[in-house]
């Protein structure tokens, strides 16, 4: 039956070599030498099975033209699809958007190609012509040998499914393999590589064309990628990746239960089952291979790239866990490229939650948390920074509060607190919920596969779990930094190096501050307080502090953000943070610390705050003014913007702008201002006058000086009035505007043109000091000059005399030398003479 079917089939001639115009083909000298030189080289071509080639060609003839046309067309399309599907395989890395290039399988199972329908008919004719071209012989050769092999395997696979083994095919296969072996020996490694490449291409093409029937060739591809040649392995991995990317279904393949297996099923179902079974088996093998190859440095990049791509395209599919584990592990890889790739993948995982309904997110977050724990917080900052791309629903917390007001939240909270020790509380509610979901999973597997939208409850559950895992790692990092700064404070003072994760962790806490539970707010704040306060100078040199100024500033910022995002309902004393900021302002160093953080701190703590304590405000005002005198213009403008804001909010502090006799205007506890005070309340700033502003008016930067005068103009206004606003920016924006980087990146302004009044200077000197010029005017001593000139003369005369004498000497010497020559000549003459005499005599 099968055989007959085969006979009826139109078998197309094998893949033609790439079409090349006749003009472009040039037979190089090497080629000629190759054929002419060694008969051995030509041997394979002599073995060419003329008949079989003819058969392939002739088989087409006599058939229905249209059908042949169609087949050709299809193959061309396939080829196009295949080559675009595996762009990396090609040497020239042709990048084609797979969306455009890949065929689409319609519901009916037909493959629809998006493009390249045209311009095929001409190709057909030319392809027949090029058939006989010699230059393609090699490629043709290998293709010819390969195709039958691949075909037979594919057929075998098909046959197995259909339980209709065609015995006749086997000997043919054997024969082919014999020939193959023979030929293999003669092929150089390069040809082998070419061959394998072609084979991979063939297989991949077949897979893409009809995955259902060709699923078996996955095995072949896998076996090719076990090759010894590294290049082949890499190619194999990449082609498999392309294939998998294409054929992985949009659902998860489930293990069949015993019961299901027992039930008799239709052929169709069987076929599908077989397909799924093979797919999953190969996928697993592929992943295992990737994981094992990842450990070899030469395959590291390829393996990680494959895994990232797979995770990106198929986060819903089976074995996601192992993929995630590998990718997460590589998040903190020391290899920049790998790390970037992994971070990107994880980020896209977080952002495109639709693909996996958030399940992968939570898994990833949990894995990262474990990873952080395992490595004792010594990871690359990137591994934590990916959390910043997490997205949570805004109403996550609120809805829950309304719905299930008490219990689960509390549990969660406790769980979170204990999560630091990794003890997921197992109480009833939790288990019940899990049970429910499990049951649902079992029952509604199909339903879930079809419906991509999660019901809100499920979604919320997942998000909450993610959140708890997220905060777990954040808190772990915080705690870790605290413990380290306690115990190891003197180990080394490379700030930043000790807590690589702290900065992104604080960033994250700031970003998700609105999601933090009220209950551990207190703990968090105290934690931050401790961290921010590690500079305490109690017997400690500030340099030995393990937290950098930026990190401590960040702690302050986070504390305020947390406090504020919870509607400031929290009853915590934030006074300490102000004290910290007050002192940190002096510790800030322009190149070492991040100026943006400082500006951000000023913005968060002082600019955004409401009414400030008057004493505190005064202390800050004074300190910021002093600060502006010693730092660059960007920092200065940030300080001044804050200062102005404080003055506007605290009208009483405006007295500092005026100088009443006796110094300060307001009497307070401390009569004299102490600029080095550590406590803003004890600085006595209210007693001081803002003289700084008068100097800042002379600041070289225009915006700073105008800001200073703007502030000074407040002195003349009523307490309720505000000066004309000149800069409507917050400190952070103001800082960014004036930062040097910004200035340098700005396009250069228009060319300067100076309009100077023409003023011709007299003869006075401007740059040289008069005593230098005097030095020149006291002319050279006469005697010295005389001596020098005379010696100059002497030397010149000496030289000329020398020249003259030398010439004479040479002349004489050469004359003497000529004597020898003369003698020689004489001798010769004599000889000649004698010879002549002899001749004469003779």
């Amino acid at each position: 039956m099968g055989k007959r079917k085969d006979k009826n089939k139109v078998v197309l001639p094998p893949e033609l070599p790439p079409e090349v115009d006749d003009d472009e083909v040039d037979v190089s000298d090497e080629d000629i030498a190759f054929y002419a030189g060694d008969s051995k080289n030509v041997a394979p071509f002599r073995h060419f099975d003329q008949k079989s080639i003819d058969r392939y060609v002739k088989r087409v003839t006599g058939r229905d033209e249209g059908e042949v046309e169609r087949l050709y067309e299809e193959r061309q399309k396939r080829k196009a699809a295949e080559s675009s599907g595996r762009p990396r395989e090609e040497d020239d890395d042709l990048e084609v958007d797979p969306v455009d290039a890949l065929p689409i399988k319609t519901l009916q199972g037909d493959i629809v190609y998006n493009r390249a329908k045209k311009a095929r008919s001409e190709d057909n004719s030319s392809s027949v012509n090029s058939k006989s071209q010699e230059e393609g012989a090699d490629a043709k050769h290998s293709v010819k040998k390969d195709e039958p092999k691949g075909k037979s395997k594919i057929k075998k696979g098909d046959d197995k499914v259909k339980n209709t083994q065609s015995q006749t095919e086997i000997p043919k296969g054997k024969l082919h393999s014999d020939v193959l072996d023979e030929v293999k020996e003669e092929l150089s490694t390069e040809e082998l590589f070419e061959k394998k490449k072609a084979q991979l291409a063939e297989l991949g093409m077949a897979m893409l064309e009809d995955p259902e029937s060709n699923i078996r060739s996955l095995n072949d591809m896998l076996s090719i990628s076990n090759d010894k040649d590294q290049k082949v392995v890499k190619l194999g991995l990449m082609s498999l990746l392309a294939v998998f990317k294409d054929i992985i279904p949009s659902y998860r393949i489930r293990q069949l239960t015993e019961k299901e297996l027992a039930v008799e099923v239709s052929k169709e179902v069987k076929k599908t089952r077989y397909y799924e079974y093979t797919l999953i088996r190969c996928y697993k093998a592929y992943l295992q291979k990737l994981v094992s190859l990842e450990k070899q440095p030469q395959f590291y990049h390829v393996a990680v790239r494959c895994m990232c791509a797979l995770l990106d395209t198929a986060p819903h599919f089976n074995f996601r866990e192992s993929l995630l584990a590998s990718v997460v592990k590589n998040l903190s890889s020391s290899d920049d490229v790998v790390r970037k790739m992994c971070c990107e993948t994880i980020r896209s995982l977080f952002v495109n939650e639709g693909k996996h309904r958030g399940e992968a997110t939570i898994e990833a977050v949990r894995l990262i948390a474990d990873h952080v724990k395992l490595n004792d917080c010594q990871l690359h900052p990137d591994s934590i920074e990916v959390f910043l791309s997490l997205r949570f629903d805004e109403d996550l917390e609120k809805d829950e509060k309304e719905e299930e007001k008490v219990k689960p939240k509390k549990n969660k909270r406790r769980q979170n607190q204990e999560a630091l020790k990794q003890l997921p509380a197992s109480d009833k509610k939790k288990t019940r919920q899990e049970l429910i979901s499990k049951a649902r999973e079992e029952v509604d597997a199909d339903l879930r596969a079809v419906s991509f939208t999660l019901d809100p409850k499920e979604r919320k559950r997942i998000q909450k779990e993610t959140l708890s895992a997220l905060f777990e790692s954040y808190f772990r990092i915080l705690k870790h930094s605290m413990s380290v700064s306690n115990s190891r404070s003197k180990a080394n003072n490379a700030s930043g190096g000790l807590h690589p994760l702290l900065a992104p962790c604080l960033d994250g806490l700031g970003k998700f501050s609105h999601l933090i539970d009220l209950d551990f707010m207190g703990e968090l704040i105290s934690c931050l307080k401790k961290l921010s306060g590690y500079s305490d100078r109690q017997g400690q040199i500030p340099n030995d502090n393990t937290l950098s100024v930026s990190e401590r500033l960040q702690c302050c910022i986070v504390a305020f953000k947390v406090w504020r995002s919870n509607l400031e309902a929290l009853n915590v004393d934030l006074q300490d943070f102000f004290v910290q900021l007050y002192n940190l302002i002096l510790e800030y160093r322009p190149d070492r610390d991040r100026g943006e953080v400082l500006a951000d701190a000023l913005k968060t703590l002082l600019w955004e705050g409401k009414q400030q304590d008057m004493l505190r405000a005064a202390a800050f005002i004074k300190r910021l003014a002093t600060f502006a005198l010693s730092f660059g213009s960007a920092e200065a403008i940030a300080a001044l913007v804050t200062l102005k804001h404080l003055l506007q909010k605290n009208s009483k502090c405006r007295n500092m702008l005026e100088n009443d006799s006796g110094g300060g205007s307001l009497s307070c506890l401390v009569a004299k201002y102490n600029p080095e005070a550590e406590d803003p309340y004890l600085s006595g700033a209210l007693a001081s006058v803002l003289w700084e502003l008068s100097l800042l008016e002379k600041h070289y930067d225009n915006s700073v000086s105008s800001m200073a005068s703007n502030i000074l103009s407040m002195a003349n206004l009523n307490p309720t009035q505000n000066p004309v606003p000149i800069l409507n920016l917050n400190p952070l924006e103001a800082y960014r505007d004036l930062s040097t980087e910004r200035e340098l990146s700005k396009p250069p302004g228009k060319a300067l043109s100076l309009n100077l009044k023409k003023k011709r200077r007299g003869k006075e000197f401007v740059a040289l000091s008069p005593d230098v010029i005097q030095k020149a005017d006291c002319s050279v001593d006469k005697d010295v000059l005389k001596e020098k000139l005379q010696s100059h003369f002497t030397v010149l005369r000496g030289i000329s005399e020398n020249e003259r004498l030398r010439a004479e000497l040479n002349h004489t010497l050469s004359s003497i030398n000529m004597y020898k020559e003369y003698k020689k000549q004489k001798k010769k003459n004599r000889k000649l003479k004698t010879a002549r005499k002899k001749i004469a005599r003779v």
Partner: protein
Amino acid sequence: MAKKLGKKARKFARKNLQSAAKRNRKIRNQINHRRPRRGGESLRPAPASRGGAAREDGDLEAPQRVDDATTMSTNDDAAILINGLEFPEDDFEIDADFSDSDGYLSEDPGCPYYSDSEDCDAGKDCIMQDGLGRQNEDMNLDIKKQKKKLKKLLDKDPDFANFLEKWQSELESYRSKEDSDEDDGMDSMDDDDDDSKDGSSQSAKILTGKTISEWSQLVSKEPKSPAIRNLLNAFRDACRYGVHSDSSSMQRFQNARVFYQIITFVLSESDNIFRGLLEISDDANKGQIMNLKQSKKWKTVDPLIKSYLQNSLGLLSQLTDNKILAFVLTRLRASVVLFSAYPSTSRRLLKILFRLWASGDQTLSLSAFLMIREVASLLPDCLDLCLTKAYNTYLASTKLVNDRNTKHIDFLMNCLVELLSLDVQKSSERAVTSVEQLNAILRQASKTKEKEDLRKIDNWQYINCVNLWVRFLCCNYKDYNLHPLLSRVLQVIRGVAHLFPGTRYLPLRLKLVRMLNELSTCSQMFFPIPSLLFDCLEFREVSQKAQTQKTRVNFSSLLKVPKSLLKSREFQEQCILSAIQVLSTHFAQWSYHVSFPEVATIPLILLKRLHEQTTIESLHRPIKRLIDQVNENKDFIERKREVASFSPNDKASVDSFLQDEKSSGNTSFTRFYASVAENWQPRGRKTL
């Protein structure tokens, strides 16, 4: 008649004898043309092209620079820009008429030559004193010996004499052939050949000391005396002495004293004589000279002046001793205005002058500079050329900085500023283009952050260029509205400081801070100096191990500290001392300002901390001293302002605060600063 004939002969010679100089000129012109269009542009100096990327390198005297230019202008425009730091100069048609005449003057036979026998012997012995003389003596002996030998041979074989004669005549004919082949190999002074026709009779005459003194007396008494011609001819021969060993002029000088007499007399007196002849005053300007050029008077004096000037130039290019050169320059300076009549000669003069200016000797380059300045101010059409040449020379000589030449570079910079200040309007255009270039390089570097781009900034040429414009601003800020330029320069300084953070670049940074201090002093603007000094003051990583060899760290010749020195004691010491230095300058500037206490607050905190923590004993005293002085001044200001009645917003009062004290300069801090500033290397420039 004789004169005319001479002229004809010379003309002939000029036409037919391709002198080496001419060939050179030709080559140079070719080079100029080869440079695609740039040369052409610079011929018609459009303002845009002047400072632009185009760079003209006609100066063959600095092949180094040419090499450098080709290596640097490899690819991107930034590379061109760094070359473009230099201004294009046009050397074209230099010395177009410089071989016009060699300045030989026909002599009046009425001026007798005197012979004096005493001098003859006195001259002889001084010749034989040096090593060359001894060698000559040896050779003399040798020659005698060899001649004897030859004679013997000749005696032995009379036939040989014939043979030798034949050979010699052969040789000569061969030589003359060769000569005609490459007779242009001789210098332009070849024109001598034709002089000898008319001048032979005179030049054969030996100049004795007596002759010269007689002539001198004659000329001093009566400038119009014909003896001036004789004197100038003698001067001409003196100036060329040694150029042609076989020329008859060699024999004209009886001894060294005559040589000295001629040169000193002519150099010191001729300016007066010419002015007397032309009847012009000492402060004559170019216009007057140009007017004179039409007059009849000029026609008679013209060849004299020409001869004098050209031969002086010849002397300048030939002399090697710095002192004599300086002397010649000082003498010649008096007659600068006379150069205005001969543009090409003045170009040649400038070329020589810039070479001498860039040379390392202090007095010489100073006198060269004074001369340049004289030229630039007296000959307005030379100003542009002077500025361009000076700028390029400055850049070329600041490429490498070491301990020895820092002073010289500073001097060169000051000189250049002097030149630029002659016409601020003109030079501010140059300043703008140059600063724009600096800015562009900076932007490029900050965009790419690539090593190659950064290296364009982290080099001496860039920094010295910035420094130049800073100094230019400082000198002229008061009198001109240069504020836009100032802000551009500031941008550059800030950008450079930002691009090179870290302790390794502390010397560079300190340099920038010094520039800021200078700018601040001249513009009375406030710069937050301390922000750039924190690294210095908080830097205390001294390596534990004692350094075996003492290395002296000199910041003035460093931009980047070598890694090996980074943790050394010396480096740290130098670092802190320099920081103290610049900080004191900063404090001194604001020491009378009402907010001095606040200015000092943060630096004081750091200084105190440093004083407590530093392990280097030698630093304790200077730090402590600064702290004490600052504290004292702080208290002083605080006391004063407590009794003041104005508020910070009262600008006028703030400005007048303590102005009396400032003008008297009698506070302890001012005194402290003055005493400390003395110890630092003298800057060699006016304190503003």
